[in-house]
């Protein structure tokens, strides 16, 4: 068993990088991934990173406390720009989450073996991104302690939510998305929690992982139902993830504000979400595989594939920008034409050009295999794309609101210190949760990696 066969040489077919470096056994993948959680001491890098991000979380808490004391006036929002950083950041964060679901659900349904080593932390990324996203609409209401008004409940006042409003759809879409992502993640973790329980080094680990594993023992009956449930969840999460950013785009598209009221918004928002999400997966995966020596599991094949997905979704996004412009002029609607010109020549034009540079021009480098195989270049590219996607939401929210129908209602938007501190605080929260996750739970799905080992040893590592 597990005799590594020499690679078959087929000179005319250029061989792909493996999704798992050869020579691994069930025990070796388990050891390597579980050791990160169970035995490895906390390194100076982890401690430094955790300390930094923890202090950013304190900045977030401070900003939120000040917000609750003073109200949303501490932000740069005004009339007419009622949606500032809060909505920009909300859309950006929720979009980042989408890649996790795409990797775990859609690539699972498409039977893409390369998803196996990246799905777990991509799902964790989804959860943490949704948590960061959820903060913003909540605090943007101004009185977050009244947020339960958005839920349908039999109140003594006899009032009910307006179900015809996209903002209420958003409440349902985002909370469903968060719940389903959490369940999907937990179900995926269940067999790995059992592995950690069985390999626990002390009583504390045994208790925690034992309780979370719920007595999972890998029975064939259990696996059968488990696989059925997992497949169904993947099938349910697939339309769900598409619906979530569609509903988010309805927040804009259903309004009649120029630059928002377009039918291209749902598909182009979904593509943008996947684009930024894959960029964030790369931002996380590249340091992770280096820090914990997981290059055997997250191989160049993964990075290359993710780069290709970014290139493809980036082109869809570019098409979306083009259609926005085309439709503005083709419709002949003077407000739409004016808005399009404002993007190119208005007071926020430099944001628009930066957006084009980050989201459309720079990613064209991904056509070159040399760039896709250069880890440092990919890392920088992923940061550039994340910046670009943030700028996209800024352009959409701010330019339209500063230039609507009547010139007397035009305005300017200037974010304040508290806008930035809240945003940077959520970045800290996100990364801090990732730090905790990496050391508390297996960052790669161990049981699925064992399946991959079994699969590779059958096909001699030569599938596809």
């Amino acid at each position, binding site marked *: *068993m597990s005799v590594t066969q020499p690679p078959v040489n087929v000179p005319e077919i250029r061989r792909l990088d493996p999704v798992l470096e050869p020579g691994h056994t*069930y*025990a070796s993948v*388990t050891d390597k991934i579980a050791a990160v959680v169970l035995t490895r001491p906390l390194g100076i890098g982890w401690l430094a990173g955790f300390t930094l991000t923890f202090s950013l979380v304190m900045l977030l808490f401070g900003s939120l406390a000040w917000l609750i004391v003073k109200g949303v006036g501490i932000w740069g929002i005004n009339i007419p720009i009622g949606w500032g950083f809060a909505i920009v950041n909300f859309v950006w964060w929720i979009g980042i989450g989408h890649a996790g679901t795409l990797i775990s659900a859609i690539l699972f349904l498409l039977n893409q073996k390369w998803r196996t080593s990246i799905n777990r932390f991509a799902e964790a990324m989804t959860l943490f991104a949704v948590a960061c996203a959820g903060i913003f609409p909540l605090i943007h209401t101004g009185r977050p302690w009244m947020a339960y008004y958005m839920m*349908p409940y039999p109140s003594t006042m*006899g*009032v*009910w*939510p*307006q*179900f*015809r409003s*996209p903002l*209420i*759809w958003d409440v*349902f*879409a985002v909370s*469903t998305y968060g*719940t*389903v992502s959490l*369940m*999907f993640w*937990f*179900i995926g973790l269940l*067999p790995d929690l*059992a*592995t950690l*329980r*069985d*390999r626990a080094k002390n009583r504390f680990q045994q208790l925690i992982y*034992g309780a979370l594993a*719920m*007595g*999972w*023992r*890998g*029975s*064939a*009956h*259990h*696996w*059968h*139902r*488990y*696989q*059925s*449930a997992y497949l*169904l*969840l993947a099938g*349910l*999460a697939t*339309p*769900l993830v598409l*619906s979530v950013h569609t*509903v988010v785009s309805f927040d804009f598209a259903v309004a009649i504000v120029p630059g928002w009221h377009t039918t291209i918004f749902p598909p182009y928002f979904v593509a943008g979400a996947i684009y930024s999400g894959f960029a964030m997966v790369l931002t996380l995966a590249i340091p992770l595989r280096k820090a914990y020596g997981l290059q055997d599991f997250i191989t160049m094949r993964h990075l290359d594939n993710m780069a290709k997905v970014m290139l493809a979704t980036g082109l869809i996004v570019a098409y979306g920008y083009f259609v926005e412009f085309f439709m503005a002029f083709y419709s002949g609607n003077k407000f739409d034409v004016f808005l399009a010109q404002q993007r190119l020549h208005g007071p926020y034009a430099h944001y628009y050009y930066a957006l084009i540079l980050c989201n459309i021009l720079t990613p064209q480098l991904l056509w070159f295999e040399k760039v896709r195989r250069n880890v440092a270049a990919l890392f920088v590219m992923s940061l550039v794309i994340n910046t670009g996607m943030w700028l996209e939401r800024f352009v959409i929210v701010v330019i339209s609101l500063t230039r609507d129908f009547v010139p007397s209602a035009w305005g300017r938007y200037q974010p304040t210190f508290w806008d930035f501190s809240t945003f940077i605080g959520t970045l800290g929260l996100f990364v801090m949760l990732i730090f905790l996750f990496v050391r508390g739970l297996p960052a790669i799905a161990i*049981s*699925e990696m*064992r*399946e991959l080992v*079994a699969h590779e040893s059958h096909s001699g590592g030569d599938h596809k």
Partner: protein
Amino acid sequence: MKEHRSQLFGVMGEFATPEQILSAAKKAREAGYKHIAAYTPFPVEGLAHAIGFRWTAVPLITLIGGLGGGLTGFGLQYWVAAITYPMNIGGRPLNSWPAFIPVTFELTVLGASIFAVVGMLALNKLPQPYHPVFNVERFAHASTDRFFLCIEARDPKFNLAETSRFLQSVAAEHVSEVKDEG
């Protein structure tokens, strides 16, 4: 002092590869054993089938959850918008059903997902902190790299000596008794 009772739960054999346990499971069925359980570190294709497990209610439960969620979602919105809290906005229809689709869809997915997960756990009788197989010391490897086949004592054909011999004959390593210390 706790009274220490211990009964025989079954006999367990250990295998090194998925192919071995699959062929052993098939042979156990052919030999006439009915109460067989297999424990593997990852799902082995065909193994549940080989030990006589064919149908699972998880998809049906999921369907019920989805239908229930969707009907609840639409029903709630219809009731709110058309019956209990109607708002006449320029004479527009109260039952504006296209506007109710997003929430109906989300609640369908939510209902189906919760039922799928909770249904799967309930059918598997999880959480279940204690199970006799955990008494076997080598069973800790079932979550790493070993494959275990357990023939349970409640099987009518079960006989300690004979069943152990059977497991050895299908190339099981470390055949051991599973005690239930209830």
